[in-house]
């Protein structure tokens, strides 16, 4: 009996009502996305009269060409890319180093310090954001890349992930390397780090996504419009919504802003799913 037939026969699979419910759910899921797409393909003037026109052709790419001429969106895109990449690389480096230290090297206070880092996972953003804002004001770090990058480096999630991963690596490999005369850093650099690429990929993608989509901190820290990230920029467009007649343009912005992140999602889907699966296990 294959796994499929077993599960199909016994409760984890098909029930008669399922396809119908699924269809309804899928429709509910896809409808807003399609609606957005359709709106973005219609000229602004037409939509001003009635949005119902989005249901029928003709469609146009005018809004998209307008975006390409609208320099602000590219500035936002650039900011998001710089900040997200920097935070991702920083987190990978810091978490890997710390993860190895916690997992394999004994130093005084290791256990206690690790628990403290773990409890850091429980600290919600709003508990630190006010004080951080004050601190960065005092240090003149608002409206700078550094100001947008630094907070993201403190997240304990990466350290937790890498520590668990290194702990699970067979100790025999490190012992063999020690017998082969490798120093501790060399063991880290040449043996453990290359072997941890799957964990790095998962951590990297999670960090990139959460930094890219971050709203609250960039909202209050990057208040100059040329420092806006893409996420904040889209919000600012929305806020001006009532003053503009550019509905089609606005929706095209939504699509445009979605594209980079959806591309990243499609490419790295495997690692996202793997990471979530590991979290469930």
């Amino acid at each position: 009996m294959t796994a499929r037939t077993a599960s199909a026969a016994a409760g984890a699979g098909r029930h008669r009502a399922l396809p119908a419910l699924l269809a309804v759910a899928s429709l509910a899921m896809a409808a807003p996305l399609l609606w957005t797409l359709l709106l973005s393909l219609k000229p602004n003037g037409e939509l001003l009269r009635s949005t119902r026109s989005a249901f029928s052709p003709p469609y146009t790419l005018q809004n998209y060409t307008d975006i390409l001429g609208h320099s602000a969106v590219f500035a936002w895109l650039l900011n998001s890319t710089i900040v997200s990449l920097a935070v991702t690389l920083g987190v990978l480096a810091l978490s890997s180093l710390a993860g190895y230290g916690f997992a394999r090297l004994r130093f005084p206070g290791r256990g206690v310090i690790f628990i403290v880092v773990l409890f850091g996972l429980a600290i919600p953003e709003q508990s630190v954001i006010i004080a951080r804002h004050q601190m960065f004001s005092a240090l003149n770090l608002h409206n700078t890349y550094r100001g947008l990058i630094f907070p993201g480096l403190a997240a304990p999630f990466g350290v937790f992930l890498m520590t668990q991963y290194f702990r699970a690596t067979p100790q025999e490999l490190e012992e063999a390397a020690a017998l082969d005369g490798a120093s501790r850093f060399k063991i880290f650099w040449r043996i453990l780090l290359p072997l941890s690429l799957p964990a790095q990929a998962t951590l990297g993608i999670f960090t990139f996504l959460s930094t890219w989509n971050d709203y609250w901190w960039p909202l209050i820290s990057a208040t100059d419009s040329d420092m806006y990230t893409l996420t904040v920029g889209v919000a600012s467009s929305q806020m001006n919504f009532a003053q503009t007649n550019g509905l089609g343009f606005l929706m095209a912005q939504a699509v445009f802003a979605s594209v980079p992140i959806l591309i990243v999602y499609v490419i790295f889907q495997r690692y996202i799913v793997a990471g979530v699966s590991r979290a469930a296990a």
Partner: protein
Amino acid sequence: MRRRGTTVGGGVGNLALRGVSKRFGSTAVLDDVSLEIGAGEFLVVLGPSGCGKSTLLRAIAGLETIDAGEIEIDGARVDHLPPGKRGVAMVFQGYALYPHMTVRGNIAFGLKNIGTERAEIDRRISAVARMLEIEHLLERLPAALSGGQRQRVAIGRAIVKEPKVFMFDEPLSNLDAALRSRTRQEIANLHRRIRKAMIFVTHDQTEAMTLADRIVVMNQQRIEQVGTPLQVYRQPATIFVATFIGSPAMNILPVTRASGSGTLQWVRLADGTQIETTACEASLPEQGALRLGLRPESVRLCALGDGQTKAVVDFVEFLGDKTHVFLSLAGGDHLVVLDGASCQVRAGESVGVMFDRAATHLFDAEGRNRRLPG
């Protein structure tokens, strides 16, 4: 008579341990272990799980620290040195090949770390690859190798470093039975070729008996006996060694003292039979239980009236080339007898039993073998 705290030399010292102890918390994982290994000797450390044999190996390698004692290699103390600097190489139980490096990379890693020249590295790798017949595997990744191939790579990685001592941590336990006996021979051949000291840890007495120049039998963090395979088999120092080595295990029967004179001591079985042993009367303790040890091959079946005593057959195992006969004696003792292929007894039969006097062992209450001199 317990061989504890004394060193038994096998020749000019190549590796020496003196009084090595290690505790973890309040538990001892190694208890006052002393040992000497001669140059080119093949030493097998044999014992059940948890006896401390792997810890001993790792302590020699430097993967474990020791709390007391000294370790010397070629006369120089090494117990303060990190593993890479002791001149030892180890073949791990799981082989521990670096998964992301090719076979060549795995073998070269150690040499690179100590700054060996490229040309020398290549030369050594070629030589080792030829010796172990893994030349065609050099560019592969470990995941693409079979278990036996991985082990040869692990051995190659050890050889190429030209260490003073080779160590093997249960290398055969991951292999299936057929591969195991073939690999055993390969390791024996290897030793003959490179003539370096080898320490081989195992729980399997067949491996120990067939490979070792000397066997170190360990139990509960201590050395029970060190000797050649024949010595350990014929003259087990303790009841543990006696029952651990040999399959089926030695029969152990509780006995009481009977009469004795000079070098002969008679003992009595539960059913009243008196058996002669070669233990010296004077060396036996006044009090304390005694136990008689007899290997299955030292007991013989005969016709019902001809034996020293009689027994009922409980169970017979025909193995083709030999037979195991399980007997019950009057008085409640049980015996296993090793008989030949032509044995024809059946369960329920009564048979006569004869004991080989020269092969009896007598163990005192602490498990020491009183039969041995000294």
